């Protein structure tokens, strides 16, 4: 079947098997390998992307189901090639990653959280990231990063209000 959807603000039309997973479509067909696949059981969260602004597991979503919808992946977070999204900066500055395998999913989940809840508590961050597994960091610095990223985004939007 032919599907058309918006991917990182650009319209994409592709021919896919209905049984293709969105994670496969992104990685294998569109060669956007920032979205990672860490499990077969929908439990690790490495594959999290945004579907119409909401964080979802792309390994548990059929390509046929995203026809007409809006997707964003980790590649679509930063404005330009040298830019980073404030949440990415916060992860870098707070050592929120070691091997980096879980990071794309962590970023996409965290940004969904702060979009809905701009000033989350540590407990709210931990609860929200329940479905994102990290084998390296022990989560401490990930939580720190998300709280710092939320702060940076609040500061940036306050700056906009004043401008």
């Amino acid at each position: 079947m032919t599907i058309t959807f918006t991917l990182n603000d650009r319209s994409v039309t592709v021919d896919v098997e209905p049984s293709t997973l969105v994670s496969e479509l992104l990685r294998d067909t569109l060669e956007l390998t920032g979205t990672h696949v860490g499990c077969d059981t929908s439990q690790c969260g490495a594959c999290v992307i945004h579907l119409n602004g909401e964080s979802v597991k792309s390994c548990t979503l059929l390509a046929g189901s995203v026809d007409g919808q809006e997707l964003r992946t980790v590649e679509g977070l930063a404005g330009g090639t040298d830019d980073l999204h404030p949440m990415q900066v916060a992860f870098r500055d707070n050592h929120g990653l070691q091997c980096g395998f879980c990071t794309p999913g962590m970023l996409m989940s965290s940004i969904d959280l702060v979009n809905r809840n701009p000033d989350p508590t540590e407990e709210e961050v931990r609860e929200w990231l329940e479905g994102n597994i990290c084998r390296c960091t022990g989560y401490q610095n990930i939580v720190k990063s998300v709280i710092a990223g939320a702060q940076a985004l609040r500061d940036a939007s306050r700056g906009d209000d004043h401008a």
Partner: protein
Amino acid sequence: MKAFSLQKPASVADAVAALGSAEDVLPLAGGMTLIPTLKQRLSECAALVDLSDVPELRGISLEGDVLVIGAMTRHTEVANSDVVRKAIPSLAALASRIGDQQVRNRGTIGGSVANNDPAADYPAAVLVLNAEIVTNVRTIPADAFFIGMFETALEPGEIILRFRFPVPDMAGYAKFASPASRYALAGVFVARTGDSVRAVVTGAASSVFRATDVENALARDFQPGALDRISIDPSEFLSDIHADKDYRGHLAIVMAKRAVQTALALAE
């Protein structure tokens, strides 16, 4: 995954027509159970009918003292609905603790109840409140719906449209979640309406069931202490690497007490 075709009807009538009565044509809701099982080849199908564009299957409303929830309503919508929080707060709390946030963003009440996983949360709510399950062909009371492990009264091609939950005087749910999946190792939902008390156990046996000794004890005295001398026979319970049947039996009573405590706290 084996190849299959996919349709996306925009009305219940078109969905029912697309499903027909073949056993290998399945409705697709949030996909949070169906897609992993297809991926792992635990099941296969010839075609899927994606229900996400059918507006009649969405929405939450209060009709008198009945809370109506559409089958395609996502867990996160139930968890955050002011209508649900006010009418049956324990149901909103249950939805907020299913899996993780990304599972709750996609998973639906209809998919969860149709699937009837022995460790799922929603079947406990549906049975404890004796909700009505409204399908495209009939209305099924919860007492006649849950048949056994992953088995319900639904026929091939029959889809759940919505649930009708009678609002209880008070209700509470407590689960002991598996730390990996968040599914219940044992969960108990208790509800009181007038003099009648119902108590349902999930996670412990092959399907949700009413614990009549717990119900009788709570009907006499709706307090956690009323269960001090009550036990549930665990001989038919599940045993796996997470918990053996005796442990699940013990856990069920502990969860029942916590559920009563929660119900009393929510009713204050």
